[in-house]
């Protein structure tokens, strides 16, 4: 294994936060491809423009699971506008960095969040 993970990545991988699904989610983001070894499904609940609940399910390596766990911590309680600004780099930085090889293939969490927000906004627009 070429990758050496930070303690923070290992800690989130060992004890991932907010694993699960939200059956009545306001937005769902599904990214990745099992062929590539990384898939992330992210669920959000939104109240008054604030992400009040967030859960994930991930198929992937240690980094994929740790970034999924981290994004749930970063996004919870944020407004939609704030959440949209969370970047891949922000996720990696919050985990004290990721091995270079993992920066692209396993750092899908911010993409999943953006997809979930897109889904939420589309649903909201459809209702309006």
């Amino acid at each position: 294994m070429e990758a050496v993970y930070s303690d923070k990545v290992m800690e989130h991988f060992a004890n991932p936060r907010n694993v699960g699904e939200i059956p009545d989610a306001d937005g769902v983001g599904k990214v990745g491809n099992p062929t590539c070894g990384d898939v992330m499904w992210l669920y959000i609940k939104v109240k008054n423009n604030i992400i009040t609940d967030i859960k994930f399910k991930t198929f992937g390596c240690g980094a994929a699971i740790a970034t999924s766990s981290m994004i749930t911590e970063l996004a919870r309680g944020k407004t939609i506008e704030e959440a949209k600004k969370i970047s891949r780099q922000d996720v990696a930085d919050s985990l004290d960095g990721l091995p270079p090889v993992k920066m692209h293939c396993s750092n899908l969490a911010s993409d999943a969040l953006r997809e979930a927000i897109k889904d939420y906004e589309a649903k909201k627009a459809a209702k309006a």
Partner: protein
Amino acid sequence: MLAMIASARKRIYFDHSATTQVLPEVLEAMKPYFLDKYGNPSSIHSFGREAKVALEEARKSVAALLNADPMEIVFTSGGTESDNLAIKGAAMYKGRMKGHLITTKVEHHAVLEPMDFLKRFGLEVTIVPVSSDGLVDPGDVEKAIRNDTVLISVMAANNEIGTIQPIREIGKIAQARGIPFHTDAVQAMGKMPIDVKADHIDMLSLSAHKFHGPKGVGALYVKRGTHLEPIIHGGGQERGLRSSTVNVAGVVGLGKAAEIAKRDLEPTSDRMKALRDKMIKAVPELIPRSYVNGHKTKRLVNNASFRFDFIEGEGLVLQLDFKGIATSTGSACSTGSLEPSHVLLALGLTHEQAHGSLRVTLGRENTEEEVGYFLEVLPGVVSKLREISPFNEETPMGASEGGSCVQ
């Protein structure tokens, strides 16, 4: 925190195909060649002579392990260099640099990459496929032979799935056609008997650290009369086939490890085989949607290779590491590329299946208790990762979502 988890109990090493512990007797044999007998074996004074004597003793031990003549053993820096010397050396003989080579889909990168390199100079390579349990069909090798074939290279046993190849049959075919036959036996040494004469082998690569010798030293057996060009040029050591001052202490360690491998082959193989069989029987029974990779019987005594649906191998290796068990995987995440192991794909597995692989490789020191602990811990670890995974029986993995793997 992680160090605490790992030190809470004795660690279990189940990654012997990656490397092995140097046995105390091996280390003891090496020590004098660092401290007192540090001469250069090429020197004619007493310091040089005692190093030379040790070198030749080690050569005899390695030869004895293979049923070769000591003069047919060339010391190298390890398995990779031995493979490179055999392949490039055969292709470049007398500046030829043309012709055709035959190998298989499941070879180690140390064989496939030199072959690929030679393609840049106009050589052609046929890569023979394997069956779903990883076996090469000698008939396929025979069919691939051309008038200009300069080398056939087929590994003795696979490093990931443990499948043992029919090298004797392939060697016989190669010999009948007058083509040099090379085998990468890096994983086979100390785990199965190899007789270069009976198996019709012209060149064989081995590496000390895979059978309780030190890292950074190996050997290439080169049958007398084999046409080979050196790839490292200099002072002409090792009969001109491998210049560079020989790593005397390392070679002494290799010699000792070879001696022990020969002496203990039977009892250690029997023990490892019993533990291996226990694992490959128990895992599919204990865990739903789990499978054994490789051949059921034609496999290395120390290799148990599995795969699990819905989860990814690196996560599995890390979770087992938390429990103090060291294993490995052929998932893409572990290879540092976006592709899972070429060996698993060669079996016909999909990328998704290959990502969920786990390799457990035993050593002579492993015990029944350790295997018992592994079998106790594994189902929970797999369940934990399956709880995190979006995939399960109802939601199977499909390659439909997302686009290319390169993002």
